[in-house]
C-alpha cells in the first residue's frame, strides 16, 4: 500500500476501524446467533424489529440496554466493579489489531503477531475475575472463579495448538503464517493440522465460555455468573459485546491459523480473481456458524467434566502434537 498520507490521519483511521469492529461484530453476530439458533430449533427467531426478518433486533437491544438504569450493588467494590468491563472489553478490541483481513489489509502487521494475540486474548479473563470478585454476590464469585479455572485449563491447549502452527510456519507473524498456507490445511502434514485445528476450536469454545462449556455463566446454576450484578450499559460492555467480539475474533484467528486466511479455498487460478478479504470474511462466517451451531446441539457439561476434559484430554493431546510437529519439522522438513 503505497499511499502517501499523513501518518496521524492514518492512525485516526486505524483507531476508528478498530473501535467500530467490536460493535459491528456484536450487532451482526448477535443477530446471526438469534437466527441460526432459531432455525436450528424450527423457530423463526426475531421477526419484527426493523421490518425485514427482524434485522434491527440487536440494534434495538443495544438501545434498550443503553437506556437502562446503571445499578451498582452496595456490597460491591465499586472501583473494581466499574473497571472490570473495561478490562474485559479493551483486550478484545485489541485482538483485531493484528488479524490480516487481506495481505495488505491489516492494522498492524506485528512480527510477533501470534504471541501478541495469545497474550492479549487471555487478559480479558482477568476482567471477568475482577467482575466476579467485586460484585459482592456469591454467584458472581463462583462464576468468576470458574472463569479463572477455565482460563488456566484451556489457555494451555490453545497455546500448544498455536505453537504447533508457528513451528510449521517458522514465523510468528500472522501474515507470514497465512502466506505459508497455499490453501486450506496445505501447510500441514497429514494429521497434525487437523488435530491442531480440533484442539484449537474446542479450546476456543471453552475460552469464550460458550455452550457446552459455559459453566462460568451457567444461568440455571449461577444466574449469569460474574455478570449477575451488571445492568444496562455495563452489561453490554462486560458481557454482550465481549461475547460476540470473542466469537468473531476466535473465528478470525482460526481462519488465519488453519483455514488459509485470505487465500482461496483451493489453489485454482480462476479463484484468485476473488479478492482476499472476501475469502477471509467467508471463512470467518463459516467458523462463526460452527460456533453458533454447537450451542443448540450440545447440553452443558458439568464443571468437573470441563476440567477433566482439558487436563486429561486436550493438554496431553496438545503436548503430543508439539512432539509430532517437532519430529516432522526436524526429520521431514518444515516450511
Amino acid at each position: 500500500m503505497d499511499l502517501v498520507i499523513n501518518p496521524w490521519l492514518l492512525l485516526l483511521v486505524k483507531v476508528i476501524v478498530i473501535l467500530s469492529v467490536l460493535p459491528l461484530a456484536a450487532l451482526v453476530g448477535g443477530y446471526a446467533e438469534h437466527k441460526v439458533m432459531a432455525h436450528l430449533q424450527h423457530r423463526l427467531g426475531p421477526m419484527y424489529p426493523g421490518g425485514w426478518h427482524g434485522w434491527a433486533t440487536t440494534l434495538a437491544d443495544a438501545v434498550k440496554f443503553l437506556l437502562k438504569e446503571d445499578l451498582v450493588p452496595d456490597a460491591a467494590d465499586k472501583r473494581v466493579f466499574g473497571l472490570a468491563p473495561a478490562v474485559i472489553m479493551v483486550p478484545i478490541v485489541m485482538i483485531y489489531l493484528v488479524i490480516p483481513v487481506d495481505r495488505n489489509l491489516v492494522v498492524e502487521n506485528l512480527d510477533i503477531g501470534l504471541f501478541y494475540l495469545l497474550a492479549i486474548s487471555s487478559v480479558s479473563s482477568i476482567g471477568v475475575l475482577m467482575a466476579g470478585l467485586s460484585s459482592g454476590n456469591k454467584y458472581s464469585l463462583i462464576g468468576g472463579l470458574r472463569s479463572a479455572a477455565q482460563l488456566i485449563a484451556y489457555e494451555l491447549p490453545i497455546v500448544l495448538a498455536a505453537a504447533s502452527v508457528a513451528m510449521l510456519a517458522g514465523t510468528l507473524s500472522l501474515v507470514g503464517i497465512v502466506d505459508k498456507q497455499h490453501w486450506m490445511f496445505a501447510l500441514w502434514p497429514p494429521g497434525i493440522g487437523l488435530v491442531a485445528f480440533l484442539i484449537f476450536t474446542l479450546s476456543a469454545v471453552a475460552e469464550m465460555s460458550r455452550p457446552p462449556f459455559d459453566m462460568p455463566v451457567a444461568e440455571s446454576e449461577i444466574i449469569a455468573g460474574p455478570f449477575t450484578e451488571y445492568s444496562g450499559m455495563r452489561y453490554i460492555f462486560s458481557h454482550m459485546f465481549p461475547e460476540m467480539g470473542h466469537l468473531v475474533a476466535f473465528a478470525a484467528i482460526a481462519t488465519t491459523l488453519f483455514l488459509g486466511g485470505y487465500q482461496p479455498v483451493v489453489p485454482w487460478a480462476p479463484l484468485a480473481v476473488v479478492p482476499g478479504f472476501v475469502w477471509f470474511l467467508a471463512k470467518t462466517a463459516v467458523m462463526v456458524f460452527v460456533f453458533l451451531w454447537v450451542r443448540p446441539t450440545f447440553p452443558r457439561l458439568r464443571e468437573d467434566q470441563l476440567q477433566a476434559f482439558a487436563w486429561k484430554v486436550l493438554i496431553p493431546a496438545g503436548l503430543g502434537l508439539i512432539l509430532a510437529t517437532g519430529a516432522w519439522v526436524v526429520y521431514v522438513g518444515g516450511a
Partner: protein
Amino acid sequence: MSDSSRKVARRPGFGIGLLKGLAVTFKHLFKHNTVIQYPDVKQELPPRTRGVIALKEENCTVCNLCARECPDWCIYIDSHKETLPPKHEGGRARKRNTLDRFAIDYSLCMYCGICVEVCPYDALFWSPEFEFSEYSITELTHEKEKLSDWMATVLPPPELDTGAAMPDEERVLAAAAARSGDPAAAPEQPTAAPEQPTAAPEQPTAAPAASTSRGAALAASGQDPDAVYERVLAEETAKGSSDRVATARAKAARMRAIKGTAAPGITPPPSAQTSGEEATPPPSASPATPAATAPKPSSAAPEQPVTPVRAREGFPVPPDPGSLVANVRIPAPGPNPPLQVTEDAQAVYDKVLAEQLRRGASPGVAEARARVARLKAEQGIGRGPVAYDEQPPLELSVPATTSEPERQPAPESQPPPEAPARNPEPSTPARAEMPATPAPLAPAPALGPVEGEDPDAAYERVLAQEIAKGSSERVATARAKAARMRAIKGTRGPGG
C-alpha cells in the same frame, strides 16, 4: 466429553456421537419451521377447541344444571315463571321458566367444559374464539346477549371416526329419510306407529306435527325432497330474499319434506288434514304434544325458518331431531345488528369458502369458517386490539333481575338493588374481615359519594391525596388505580 456420567454401557466412539448430534441439528436447519406468526397469521383451531362458551338461548330450559356443576361458580342464571293460558277450552294453564339472565364470568371460568358436557338440551357449545380479553376485569362477565353472539362462531362437530356408532340425531334422520323416501310406505307409517310404542320416543315432536303438515302431504304424494328444495329456493329468490335466507329456507323445506313436518304458519289443505288426522298416532307417551303445537302461531313464521321453536314464545321443547342437527349447522344470526360494515362481507365469505375448500376442508367446516369470517367482517371483530381510549366508558349496569338468585350471599344491611355478587364463594371469607359494607357492584353516582363513589372521582381524589402526601408519581398512580378498582367493585381499601 468422554466422561459421560451415563450408566449406559458405551462404546468408545471417538466423538462420532457428537458429530451425529451436529448432523441432526444441521438437518433441522433446512426443515420447514413450524412457527405460526400468531397475531399476523391465525391458526385455524379445530371444532372442539375450548375457546369461549356460546349460549343457544332458545334451547335453555333454566334447569340450572350448568350453574350447579360449575366448579368455579361462574355461571349466573336468573329466571322467572310465566303462566301460559290453556291452549284449549277447559285446558290447564301451563307454567314455564323464562330465562332472564345467563352470564358467565370468564375471569373465574377455568374452561373445564363441565357446563357444556352437562347441559341436557344442547344450549351450551364450545367456540374456538379465544381473543376476548378486556381492559377491565368486570367486562369479562359475558351476559346472554354476548354469549349468544358467540353462537355464530361455533364450528360443526368433527367428522366421526370410521366405524363409530351413528349419533342418535343422525340415526333418526336416516330412518325418517328411509321412510319418506318410499312414497308407498309413507301413508302406512303413521298407522304402524301406534302398534310400536317404542318408536314414539324417537320422534316425539315430529310425529304429531306430521299429521297436519304440508310436508306429509307432499311426501305422501311422492314429492322429492330435492325438488322441494329447488322449488323453495326458486320461490325465495324470486321474492328477493338474500342468498343466505333463501338457502336456509330451502334447506328447511327439504328437511320438512323428508320428515313430513308442517311448515310454520302454513295452514294445511283440508284434504290433507282429514286424511292425516285419521292416520295420526295419538302419541300418548309424549309430553311434548302441546309444546309442539304451541309455537306455531303464524307470527313465528317468517324470521325463523330453521328453528321454529323459540323459548321466548313457547315452552322450550326438546328439539326435534332435525333441528338438533340444524342447531349445530345453522346457528341463528346474532341478535346484534352489524356494527359497521367496513369490508364486503360476502366477498370475505366467498374468499374464505374457496380457500377452505381448496385446502381440503370438509364442506361443513368450510362453510362454517366462511360464515364466521363473514360475521367478523360484518361486525368488525378481530381487527386487533382497540385502543384503550376508544373503549366505551365502563358500563357496569347489570340487567335488572326479577328474582334474587338463591346462592348469592346477600349482605344483611342493605342489599344492593341490582347487584348480584360477582365473587360468589371464594372471596367471601376475605371480605368478611372487612366492615360489613354492602358491595354494590355498580355504584351509581346517584347513590352518594361516600360508599358508591364514582370510580373516576375516587381515582382523582386518591391521586391528589397521594401527591399531597409526597408519594412518588408511580406509587400515587398505582394507589389511585387501586382505589378506582375498589370503587368499581365496592370493596374497602386497606385500613379503610
